[in-house]
């Protein structure tokens, strides 16, 4: 400080200016570092935590939902729609209900679909099987397909010709081999992505024409894999966001997530 007092006046003024500028820069850098560290720590927690526990952590869930909403709208909204209701025209699923094609709608399940996609050409994609073109392959005749549709209507408590439905039931359980993927009670097998036929939430619509086309021509829906394109924190945030607006699948005898039996017994 002694030296400062002895410095020329103009030099002292310049130094004060420099000190002020450095102080402002340090404040800005400090605040940026604080903000970055806050975001970094939240992102870190987001990817380190058990995904299925995140919805119970209000602060983390709130951060993830905000981050996930923005990422969903940018990357997923073009197919799923900003409202996540999907489209039966394009076979894009509604993500706001409790019906899941693959797995059970837990954050960890959704995250894996976002990470690796469906039939996305990535080794870990959901790609066990697809809906075969049963009509085109002449496995069933058009009349037999119509009988199976009648049977599906009865499963959904809808009106159908009982004789046709009876024939459809036999075809479902025997010649058509439909039970192999959709299970004997038609409640689906989420490991295969084979949907339950008991509800009327059908990916490509519920009209007879749409059902006929699905059975006749087969279906092979796709969802891109986002691994390598989005950060892991963003992918998990999307999963938490989707989970926050949907519901997990209800347990049924042939459709149970791991531990559901334990939980039911315990409950």
């Amino acid at each position, binding site marked *: 400080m002694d030296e400062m007092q002895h*410095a020329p006046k103009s030099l002292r003024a310049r130094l004060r200016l420099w000190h002020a500028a450095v102080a402002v820069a340090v404040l800005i850098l400090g605040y940026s570092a604080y903000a970055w560290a806050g975001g970094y720590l939240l992102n870190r927690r987001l*990817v*380190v935590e058990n995904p299925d526990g995140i919805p119970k952590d209000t602060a983390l869930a709130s951060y993830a939902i905000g981050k996930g909403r923005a990422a969903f709208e940018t990357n997923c909204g073009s197919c799923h729609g900003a409202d996540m209701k999907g489209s039966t025209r394009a076979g894009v699923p509604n993500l706001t209900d409790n019906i899941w094609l693959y797995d059970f709608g837990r954050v*960890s399940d959704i995250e894996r679909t976002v*990470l690796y996609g469906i*039939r996305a050409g990535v080794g870990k994609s959901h*790609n066990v099987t*697809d809906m075969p073109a049963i009509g085109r392959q002449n496995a069933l005749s058009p009349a037999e397909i119509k009988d199976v549709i009648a049977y599906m209507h009865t499963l959904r408590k809808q009106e159908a010709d009982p004789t046709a439905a009876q024939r459809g039931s036999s075809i479902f359980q025997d010649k058509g081999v439909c039970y192999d993927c959709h299970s004997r009670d038609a409640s689906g097998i989420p490991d295969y992505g084979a949907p339950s036929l008991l509800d009327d939430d059908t990916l490509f619509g519920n009209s007879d024409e749409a059902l006929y086309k699905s059975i006749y021509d087969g279906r092979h829906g796709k969802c891109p894999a986002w691994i390598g394109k989005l950060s892991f924190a963003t992918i998990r945030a999307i999963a938490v966001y989707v989970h926050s607006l949907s519901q997990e699948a209800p347990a049924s005898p042939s459709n149970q997530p791991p531990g559901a039996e334990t939980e039911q017994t315990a409950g």
Partner: protein
Amino acid sequence: MDQRTPKADFWTRMAEVHPRRSLTLFACGTALGLGIAAYGLFTAAGTRIAGVPPEDIALINGRHILRSDFIAQTQVETAMPYEQTTKEQRLKVLQEMIDEEIMVQRGLEVDLAASDPDVRAAEVAGVQLEVDADVLAQQPSDQQLEAYFNMHRDKYSGEGIMTLRDLIVQPDETTTPEQARAKAKTAADAFRKGTSSDDAAATNGLKDSGKLDRGDMFDFAVRIKLSPQLYAIASKLAAGQASDPVEDGGITHVLFMEKRQQAAERTFADARDAVFQDYKKDEQARVESANLQYLKSKADIQLTPEFR
């Protein structure tokens, strides 16, 4: 007179430019920067990531084991939600995943693919499956299939049968091309008027080219044996018809169709299943070939002179 004190001179000196000092500081900074870069680039410790990234559960020689994969694997192996699994169960699963990763890395290290046909086949199949993913998932519309059917109608018609003779004028030094054509034309006219092919040939000095068998032949067999020009002419002849003289390969030919059974045409509806399969196969072959072409364009392929 300079009234400044020695302490004030300190600031003045500090504000002066000293080229030697500047260069020394510049050299020190450069040396430090290069040192750090070299350490990072050329030493294993420098390239090692400090700590495991938060999205991973482990790093094995720099290869990631994702938490998401670990959680899924734990749930599959224990058939329990992840939060209900014990630390021992998790450690067991982690150990298995590490073991697997190490074995895979060892396989890469010893270049198993170079020597083990099963590994090579699995790698080829894996790459093709990845490339084919779009095609396998694609569901062509009826319009696309019908367009494909129309472009490849010959694939979906049954084979026709023809009893055809490909006769030539024996070339020799005394017969001019004009004379050869005249002989062939006379023989053709005789055949059209009902003379047997043997008589018409013998009378005019024609002989079999030797390309066709005597008797019935499927269209595809004739197509293989005759030149495209001759087959195109033959395929339009009906029973009892003869072609005009044709120059092919410097020889005068004439074709006699003794019997003809036309190929049966299939409709799109009849052939739809086969069209679907062929369409998929062609699409698959197309993307696989495009992928190979792209990979080859990036590859450094050197051939021995005899195969260049």
